[in-house]
């Protein structure tokens, strides 16, 4: 996964799996929390899937509202986690 658009497709995929159909298109600025698009299980699924695809460990402590407001916010958080794990050396 290389950018926020690809992240949007992943989120879309997970929401579609959960609800069986797509009502809304997820774009980088879709408000994920306010629209009620994602519930807690879906959030944890997004985190798990992102970890698998990118091969990072997303710390539990970063799973907070500020990082899930929009796909862009989540992408920024992913980049920050990637940066931190590079500078620390692989953990």
């Amino acid at each position: 996964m290389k950018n926020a658009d690809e992240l949007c497709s992943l989120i879309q995929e997970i929401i579609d799996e959960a609800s069986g159909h797509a009502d809304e298109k997820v774009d980088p600025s879709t408000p994920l929390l306010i629209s009620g698009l994602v519930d807690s299980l879906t959030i944890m699924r997004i985190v798990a899937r992102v970890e698998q695809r990118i091969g990072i460990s997303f710390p539990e402590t970063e799973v907070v509202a500020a990082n899930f407001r929009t796909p862009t916010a989540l992408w920024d958080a992913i980049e920050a986690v990637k940066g931190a794990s590079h500078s620390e050396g692989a953990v």
Partner: protein
Amino acid sequence: MTAQGQTSVVENAVASAAKSARSALSRTTGADFRTRWKALAAEGLLSDAPRPPSGRAAGLGPVTTALAGIEGIGLAGAPAGLCYALASQRFGIQCPLRPVLSQEVRHSLGDVAGGDVLLCHALTEEGGGSDPLSMSTSAERQEDGSYVLTGMKAFVTAAPIADVGLVFARTSADRTPFALSAFLVDLRVPEVKRSDPFRKTALTEVPMGSLTFGGVRLAPDRLVGHEGSGLALLTVTTAWERAMLLSYALGPMRRVLERTVDWCKSREHFGRKMGSSHLVAARVADMALALHRSRELVYRMAARLDAGERPRQLAADAALTKISVAEDYVMFTQQATMLGGVRSFIEDSGLCPDLISPMAASTYAGPNDLLRVTVARELGLPVEN
């Protein structure tokens, strides 16, 4: 290491834990819960960085080592409630917190590894167990960054005696995934009131009770992770619990199987040994099957955690493990009860199984039916809680 080598290394670790546990238990016969807890902890079970096993148990990872320790303690005849409490603190609290807490904060808790400080996990409330987002206990942030905790937790294992609680509370009024946060709360302060121990019928050796927080002030460093990350942390604590908590049952199951086999070999009726009936033999085989499945599943979870798999990634398999072991444990105990005849209902017969505690495993760490929903959802069914 070959699979066979690994098996005997595990067996050795279990045997050596059982040996030390037997001596710790006999030294503390009749003593209270905490004395026995501390005696068992002295063997290193609760140490976050266990001594790398040497000698015949060398090569096992820390989770497998702890698992073998729990199995050994049960095999030595420790009361089920004590095994459960040890497994619950080790796997359900210490393991998930380890990567999240700074060394300073871990230090501030006191001597958890040595068994001086007892932890508990306070999530459930009167109003809701399986639905954490419905909780009403709240932690309000103050201007200086500290929090004030108010509310009540119920049905908490070890609450009447624990020193520090991992307490989940809402830090936001909304019912959103980010409304919850976790705190480390010193339970020895006057603002925390404990109930008397509940008269519970399962796992009777460990007390359970409620905790009432009457405006407990918490320094900012008592917040675990960031504000709002409570549900993510809960996902991890529950994944650990579902994967590993039922390890507590393995030792007791082995003991019950052994004594049932002995009974079937010695009891005679219809002019022959009871164990020469095919139906009796088949029930014993079913018990062995349940124990085998449970043991393989839990050790597999431990191996995956030792290999560095993230608890979140194995949450679905952890749920399957929990359902399977919990239900096998009930079936196993029913078979033993049937084969013991009337003696299954006579307390000091040596054949009286505890029918209630295995059933309790269907409720804690996520009721089995709720876990079934999670499993089905993971398979793609559009089912929701």
